[in-house]
């Protein structure tokens, strides 16, 4: 196990290095720079700006500067926010994104699994249909429409929640719901189809024949086995929730990292692009590791290490 973990961590570092490298060169290959603007500045000012941000160095030196910055976690000044560093921006934005993301994730996982299990246990009954209608609706409506719709109904018409901003628990509800809708629906459907499949398997029949209680069967045998594909989905889901919150953050005026990330790309704010990318990739690779470890917990048939090879 320890050997396995060590190996995985080395892999993680290599992955991060490759991501940073690929991002750096793609970023440089995209036309336009941080100082491209409608009103071009005189070449001398541009040169001074480039010197200030070390963009005048040869490409490989810039690259090493970035690597150094990443390793020391000194991500440098932002190009657009003249009075902030990238570290400042991450420190401010991430807690908000993490809060929103965690709330949405919990909603999606618990809601999704509950709906899926209910639907599967009542296969082809009304509970099944209503759970799936909820799930399909969550998937059929794009998040930007759903978010605007929630805002329109629950905030503007009914006045139950604030329209926008991020100043307390009641402000977090609509954005979390909007963000959770699609992953929840996905998880619900995945859980349902797996559950139905698992419920048809011999070991469940055996358990039933042994006279085990339905609840016990469901919890001990069925759900556990049905969750594996759901777990597979969690890594990308978390990354998706964190970065994909852009539209929601914008509509509800949430000061998160998602919009920082997207805007940095359109602004060619190089340091912020690199900083947020590294940050997100770290979360992502760690999540993927956790997911792989979670596999073994959910499904004892899969062993970590090289056991998969025969």
């Amino acid at each position, binding site marked *: 196990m320890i050997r396995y973990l060590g190996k995985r961590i080395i892999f993680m570092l290599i992955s991060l290095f490759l991501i940073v490298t690929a991002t750096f060169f793609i970023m440089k290959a995209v036309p*336009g720079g941080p100082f491209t603007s*409608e009103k071009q500045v005189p070449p001398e000012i541009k040169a001074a700006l480039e010197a*200030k941000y070390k963009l005048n160095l040869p490409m490989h030196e810039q690259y090493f500067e970035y690597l150094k910055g990443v390793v020391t976690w000194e991500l440098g000044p932002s190009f657009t926010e003249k009075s*902030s560093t990238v570290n400042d921006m991450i420190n401010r934005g991430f807690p908000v994104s993490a809060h929103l993301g965690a709330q949405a994730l919990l909603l999606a996982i618990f809601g999704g699994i509950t709906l899926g299990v209910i639907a599967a246990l009542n296969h082809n009954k009304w509970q099944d249909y209503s759970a799936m209608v909820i799930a399909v609706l969550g998937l059929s409506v794009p998040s930007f429409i759903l978010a605007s719709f929630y805002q329109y109904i629950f905030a503007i018409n009914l006045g139950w929640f604030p329209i926008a901003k991020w*100043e307390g628990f009641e402000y977090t509800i609509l954005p979390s719901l909007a963000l959770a809708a699609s992953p929840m629906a996905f998880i619900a459907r995945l859980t349902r189809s797996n559950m139905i499949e698992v419920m048809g398997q011999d070991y469940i029949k055996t358990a039933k024949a042994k006279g085990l209680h339905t609840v016990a069967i469901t919890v001990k045998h069925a759900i556990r086995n049905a969750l594996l594909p759901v777990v597979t989905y969690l890594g990308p889901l978390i990354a998706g929730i964190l970065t994909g919150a852009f539209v929601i953050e914008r509509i509800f*005026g949430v000061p998160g990292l998602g919009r920082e990330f997207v805007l940095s790309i359109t602004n060619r704010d190089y340091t912020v692009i690199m900083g947020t990318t590294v940050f997100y990739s770290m979360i992502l690779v760690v999540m993927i590791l956790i997911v792989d470890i979670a596999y073994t917990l959910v499904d004892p048939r899969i062993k970590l290490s090289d056991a998969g090879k025969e």
Partner: protein
Amino acid sequence: MKKNVFALVSSIAVLGTALAGCGGGQPAAAPPAGGTPATPAPSQPATPAAEKKPQVLKMNLHSEPPTTDPGLAEDTTSGAIILATFDGLTRIGTDDKPHEAAAESYTVSDDKLTYTFKIREAKWSNGDPVTAHDFEYAWKRALDPKTASNYAYQLYYVKNGEKANKGEAKLDEVGVKALDDKTLEVKLENPTPYFLELLAFRTYFPVNKKVIDANPKWAGEASSHVGNGPFKIESWEHKSKMVLVKNDNYWDKDNVKLDKIEFSMVEDENTELSMFENGEIDWAGAPMSALPTDAIPALKDQGKIQTNPIAGTYWYKFNTEKPPFNNIKVRKAFAYSIDRKALIDNILQTGQIPATGAVPPSMVLNPNGYFKDKDLENAKKLLEEGLKEVGMSKLPAITLSYNTSEAHKKIAEAIQDQWKKNLGVDVKLENKEWKVYLEDMHEGNFQIGRMGWLGDFNDPINFLELYKDKMGGNNDTRWENAKYKELLNQSAQEPDLEKRKKILADAEQILMDEMPIMPIYFYTQSWVQKPEVKGVHQTGLGDVDWKGAYIE
């Protein structure tokens, strides 16, 4: 200046929902404006009852101000906060003219090259006295290449400003000097008729050296920010909320009525309008943001909408090096054949003015325009002649480019259809991401492309000098004309204002005769507000000053 934020605004429009400034991009507006320092601001006598109303204004700032440092700011949002928290030597009054502010008085030499300012007895928000040294320091700091201020060129009017910024002269040689604590002497390169107005622009604002030396990130947090303006920053929750309160150290605090301005930072224009309609904010739309286009007819019906012309022109640029637009007549045919009025009435809908010249009405040179809108007859004739001249029997399909945004797209779609109907030309639309688009425009990688321009200060030269040099940074059309160039050079030397105006009008005539650009409309900005909000001053350049604002 200003336009930088446009990138931000347009990309937001691109990615989120709406339209970056319905007017076609509400590019960041820029130079600050002012309340009236000299004249007591809102002369409306407030009734005692009204006096008791809490003087709190709730606004949406739209986005986080990237900085509150006057020397570094490049965008409207920062500009508005800086104008509220700083005071220049002059400040633009409600009459749109510069009035003495941090300067108590000034004298000008006969050759109009030397200005001597007497600095008013005033304090920074931290209690330090405001001195002439603060100005000298601020200007030299902005010009220092090490500061890398994007807007340093605003100070090029000052003697040796340009040279110092380009590293060709020492900072000590720059023509600004504090003779003593209260006297500032400024020497200029040329007699500059609009210099007093420039002084109200943020790059000319003072900064507090002690504060900057103590904390280089001083302009990023409420706690370390120090200004000399009507308001000071009380709190600043990044990307979320900012609160300004009245600055009790301000010299003219008696004319500052508001106790507090609360800004939220919501980028979505639809959300902003909903918040306004819900009573959460007192103002929505320009100048900090824009109203969603689809809401405009309804707001108009309710009689709520207010509009204000600003000094800006929306135009299409022709690449004059690539056929068929290397031919003047073809360019003219395209320019004459569109129906600007229909675009304004049906798409833009907020009282924009059809543009038949390059210079907007507030600084107009020829009020009658240079050609007729929707002149189909001439357009067809010109196209025919033009095609003959370039030796084509029929125009190939033309590509019209714009940066990705709902507002630009609508205009492009409508014009595409008009050209098809009126000239029988097939036009292909091509949209590009903002920075890619700019790069392509600057490199001449287009046939017809959209651009807009907002004036930085109140003078036609703003608009005309764009097309002075073929490879000038903002020309894009690759058009050049020796006579035009000469007229512009002449205008810089001409001290007589009337003669200067005539020279500039001649230049604009050449521009419109050769038509490297096709003007479409002059910008306006529109907003909705609660009726009890009074005294918010919006300048003809699109800036906003809350100094004289109050709640009735």
